[in-house]
């Protein structure tokens, strides 16, 4: 019993100090501090409501962001100047936009010429090109023709288009007519393509045989012997006096932010950031709540003994054989739990869990100590003995288990989210892994999408495991011998 009395004298402060004397404790505490810092940053930088709005906002707030973009630092890994997104907005008055409107005398028709030009110096093709129109019209709909002019001077007529709404998006690279005109251009100038080549490739490749295959195509850069720009030229007719037309060109890159983007163009780093406080809060709350409830039940079982003890012991044996995870999965699939309801369900499913048995064993030891006998002798009530004499005594040896079980809950939440049963609102790591997994990230090679949230999960788990490990050595010193 020497270890019991030794551990009983440990205060929280001294435990913390001693944890830091172990290498594993130092590393664990350092990672945990980093995660806590990240959580604080997340909560301050992106308030809760905004985080949820951004995560649920789907395309409307992310429309200028590339789909499935790589993290920015992939540039350094791949040693390639991967394209970033280029936005040239005529409405905002960006440089590179030339606009000329001429009225045709005697009519209320206006001729409009919009030229949007930009330089392109990246080592890879863009992922997508879209054109946004802001139109003012009262009588007939504006009619436009769009041309694509490459730095080498080749001029490709892309499409004739009628703008049917005041705010329209023309998805250039997935538009059938644009694709047809681009292929037409390749056929008449270079030859028959060997395979399917993407529109953005034709738009940005050097015009020779190399462009007939995606493998050989070279990017036509703006820099070089002469600096010439890419230009998108819009010629159109507007009807009515107040009619006007502005356009914004977005050339989507292949990198974005620290963690890339997902299939809905959302910035994954939001989920990585916000996943941290959620995981920490969920893991700690579940672990703490379950430990406390199990502690109380174990104390009742051990202290009162007899029938109560018998019933609680049989219940724990039943709980051990109940299919815990299938139950949890069934409940969350039938009733769509938010994360805090999940904590409650977890609590119910583990009230009589295995922890009760080990804690009860501690209670049985403490029960025999002389000072409990002394307390009984002076007539202390059961409640007084339990809360003032037994629980404070068995609390320290429980702490390693409490800390050590945090990762289990973090992974549990991640597993549920991975099965598509996560909290319907919150962005969590498990949800990102689920999104990535169900959208074929493995096959398409979007490894950061699965890898980054997994690394966050592992960091969290390892930090608690290391701290728990160090605590265990302090609180149960017998382990130190081995």
């Amino acid at each position: 019993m020497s270890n019991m009395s030794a551990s009983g004298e440990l205060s929280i402060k001294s435990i913390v100090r001693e944890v830091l004397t172990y290498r594993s404790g130092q590393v664990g505490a350092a990672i945990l501090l980093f995660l806590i810092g990240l959580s604080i940053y997340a909560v301050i930088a992106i308030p809760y409501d905004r985080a949820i709005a951004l995560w649920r906002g789907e395309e409307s707030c992310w429309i200028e962001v590339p789909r499935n973009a790589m993290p920015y630092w992939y540039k350094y890994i791949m040693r390639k100047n991967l394209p970033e997104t280029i936005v040239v907005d005529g409405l905002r008055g960006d440089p590179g936009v030339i606009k000329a409107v001429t009225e045709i005398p005697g009519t209320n028709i206006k001729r409009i010429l919009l030229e949007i030009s930009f330089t392109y110096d990246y080592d890879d093709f863009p992922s997508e090109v879209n054109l946004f129109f802001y139109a003012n019209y009262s009588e007939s709909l504006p009619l436009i023709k769009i041309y694509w002019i490459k730095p080498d001077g080749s001029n490709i007529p892309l499409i004739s288009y009628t703008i049917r709404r005041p705010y329209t998006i023309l998805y250039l690279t997935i538009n059938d007519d644009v694709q047809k005109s681009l292929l037409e251009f390749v056929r008449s100038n270079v030859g028959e393509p060997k395979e399917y080549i993407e529109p953005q490739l034709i738009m940005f490749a050097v015009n020779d045989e190399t462009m007939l295959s995606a493998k050989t195509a070279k990017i036509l850069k703006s820099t070089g012997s002469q600096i010439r720009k890419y230009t998108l030229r819009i010629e159109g007719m507007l009807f009515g006096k107040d009619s006007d037309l502005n356009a914004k060109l977005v050339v989507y890159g292949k990198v974005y932010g620290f963690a890339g983007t997902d299939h809905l163009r959302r910035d994954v780093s939001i989920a990585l950031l916000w996943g941290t406080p959620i995981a920490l809060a969920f893991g700690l709350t579940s672990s703490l709540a379950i430990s406390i409830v199990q502690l109380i039940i174990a104390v009742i079982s051990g202290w009162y003994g007899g029938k109560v003890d018998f019933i609680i012991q049989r219940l724990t044996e039943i709980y051990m054989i109940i299919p815990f995870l299938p139950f949890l999965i069934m409940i969350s699939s039938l009733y769509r739990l938010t994360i805090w309801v999940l904590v409650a369900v977890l609590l119910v499913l583990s009230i009589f869990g295995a922890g009760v048995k080990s804690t009860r064993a501690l209670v049985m030891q403490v029960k025999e100590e002389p000072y409990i006998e002394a307390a009984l002798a002076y007539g202390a009530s059961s409640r007084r003995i339990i809360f003032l004499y037994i629980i404070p005594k068995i609390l320290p040896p429980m702490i390693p288990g409490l800390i050590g079980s945090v990762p289990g809950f973090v992974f549990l939440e991640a597993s549920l989210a991975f099965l598509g049963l996560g909290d319907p609102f919150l962005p969590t790591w498990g949800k990102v892994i689920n999104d990535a997994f169900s959208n074929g990230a493995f096959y398409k090679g979007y490894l950061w999408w699965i890898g980054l949230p997994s690394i966050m999960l592992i960091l969290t788990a390892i930090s608690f495991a290391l701290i728990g490990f160090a605590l265990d050595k302090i609180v149960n010193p017998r382990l130190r011998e081995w």
Partner: protein
Amino acid sequence: MKRRIKKLIKMSVKGPILFIVKRAIALYLIVVLSVYITIVIANLGGYVDRITQAQILEDITFTIKRDPQYRGLPPEEVDRIIRDTYELELKKLGLDTPFIVRSFRYLVNGLTLDLGRALYLTSDTGSRQVKLIILERLPQTVMLFTTASVLNFFIHLFLGLYLSRHYGGKLDKLFIALSPTSIVPGWLYGLFLIMIFASILRVLPYGGYVDVPPPDDPVSYGLSVLKHMILPLSSWIISGFFMGVYGSRTFYLIFSTEDYVTVAKAKGLPPRIIERRYILRPALPPVITSFSLGLIGSWGGAIITETVFNWPGLGKVMRDAINSMDTPVIVGEVIIYAYLLAITVLLLDILYLFIDPRIRARFR
């Protein structure tokens, strides 16, 4: 003489059998309880009722639409007949009674694996019986995770023994330092394994059970299955590796400080014999306990691991059922898991009878 031996065998067999029967009854009662809880939870949202009603309605519609005597009738008339028969059937089966009564009917259905019909999923043979959909996947799950548990068991046993012999050495310290890595579950290691060996190196499949199309001759079929098992097995082995070895090493160390080991050493017994008879033998029950806990845990862990590796087992069915909100299959899965868990525990109890003399001694 012969009769006496027979009597002796009878005596020594009777006790253990009685013990197993008692355990079996206790475990079955827990299964009953699990199934009942499942039904109550699922029916809080009325799900079980809907499963049964949908099945009755489908059966009736099927019989009536095929019955030649109704064929000439206008569709509205047929619909009315179907509805009337359906309501009559509900009354006949007592489905208009309060839930407490119905719940016991459902309990019996659940316990006899009469799990109803799936809403969307079908079995490989095309059946929509939940029982068939689930049971057809059971062998794959059992195969993968029993293999994983057994492999883990032997790896932990032998490496643990090795470490306990070289206790305090560099390797020993390394295992202690790395033991926190076992907190990460197998499926998460699996994600990284797929990334490395499938996405980047392209030497092993992303997942699945067998190549598509499956090879014709049984040998290459088996090899193909083995190839698909490499990554899921590795993920579980990596996950349990350091902690498992560390744990069994500690068991052996505890037993190697017992007095009888010291006596054996003093007698000058060779170290191999001491190890086998005096350390490994008594350490076996706790080691088997950790094996059985691992096996029991693997049924739950299987759900996620199978999803990650697209392994066509119980867990994969669970994910498919969740994705298509196929409630009968979800409820059926919980019931099958309850049975699986109880059967595993019972088998391990029987195993204990063989390896732990203390349990056998009770029956002498």
